[in-house]
């Protein structure tokens, strides 16, 4: 099957949906073919994917000590 080429600009537009598995099979094939030959877009893809991976543990936003207890007290006292 012939895969129609796709530009870097189009790849950047869809890169987030690609990570989410939110593109159709035809577009996915075109993007994958593009990544094979374009180091720059592959770098963007890897970097973007890594950003998403990095934040999933939520450690950037630790809950303050005693948060739950203070919230519970507020509810109880209301």
């Amino acid at each position, binding site marked *: 099957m012939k895969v129609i080429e796709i530009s870097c*600009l189009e790849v*950047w*537009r869809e*890169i*987030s*949906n690609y*990570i*989410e598995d*939110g593109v159709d099979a035809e577009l996915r094939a075109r993007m994958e073919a593009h990544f094979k030959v374009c*180091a*720059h877009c*592959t*770098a*963007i893809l*890897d*970097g*973007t994917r*890594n*950003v*998403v*991976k*990095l*934040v*999933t543990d*939520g*450690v*950037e*936003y630790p*809950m*303050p000590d005693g*948060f*739950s207890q*203070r*919230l*519970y007290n*507020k*509810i*109880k006292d*209301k």
Partner: protein
Amino acid sequence: MTALTHAPNVPQVADTDVNDPKLRQVIDGAAITKSPPQAWYRTMGHNPEVAKAFANYWDLLHRGGAVPHQIKELARIQIAQMIGCDFCARQTSPLAATITEEEKACCALPNWEHPDAKTRAALHYARTLTLDDGRDTAVYEELKEYYSNAEIIELAAFFCLTAGGNRMAKSWSIEPHGGVSAIPAGAISIHGRESMGASKPHLEPTEAELIQRACQGDKEAFYSLVRPCERAVYTTAVSILNNPEDAEEVAQEAVLKALAHLAGFRGEAKFSTWLIQITINEARLKLRKDRRHLYESVDEQRTSEDGEYFPKDFADWREIPSEALQRKEVREALKCAIASLPLKYREVFVLRDVQQLKIEEAAQILGITEGSVKTRLLRARLRLRDALAPGIDGSWSMGKPEYQKVRPW
């Protein structure tokens, strides 16, 4: 859900018993105008003179007058939510077709602020007139910026008729299709959850049961609802405010607002979705109130997305070495990069990527389309990559060979 079904307090008049031609006209007309629906006038039909006079007055205020119908319809939905009249809140006038489902859903939030200043002023007035004594000076000052005295009279009369009408409908226990409301006065709507509850026996109380108990004053039940989402509430607040103390204050305020307005929660979304919506609104209010000059406009939320994206560089960040994840400076850089995102991107990124909510949930919470969520998410992720990748592959410094390699222009 049979326990919730009960006979109407005032039955509807059967079509065959409607002999007054003008009342017939009013009832038939309601099939088109829908707000109020036919069931309303069929119930009022026991007293045709009152029904006809009400219809005239309602038409004058709701569809006539100088204030745009759209604004009045939005206020009507908000008042119905505040009074807890699920029946009225579910109706929408076809003349107000541009009111979105998101706007309708947002009306249910105790602290929602409409992006349009003129609409916002009217909604503030509707709120104070319905819940307080309606004499809030600040609300009047805001109102007078956009409305003449004649329009204020129109709004006041319309709001009072709406609030009174909502109470009537609630007390009659009517349903749009002529049936009986499954929601007794004082209880809450749990549409969409009934089949789940009926088919799955369970030991733990369901969300609907906890809400019902919390509405009756059970604080432990309310905390059971809040506990699973308290981290999400805090994360949402701190990601918007970038300050742990402010975030805790806002999180507490949001939870207390949810408690105070729980009877108005319609159960069409999950409780956690509703609570996060309230939290976001509360955090935005705090931004507006305290630190407007330091932050980007919160109203920017409604503007169109930016133009085309072009990467700043092509820094190679193929793998994250496990030790890099643990490095304090990497985590700090990530935190700073997220904090420096424009608010509209940051909100979407935190909901979707940090809190792992579905695209549709993020859209519902923010009152935007799923398409907008995806566009903002793309921008957020690419901006964060731009901010972090060159630092991680060591190509920040101009002196290093990597610097030129990743910037071929």
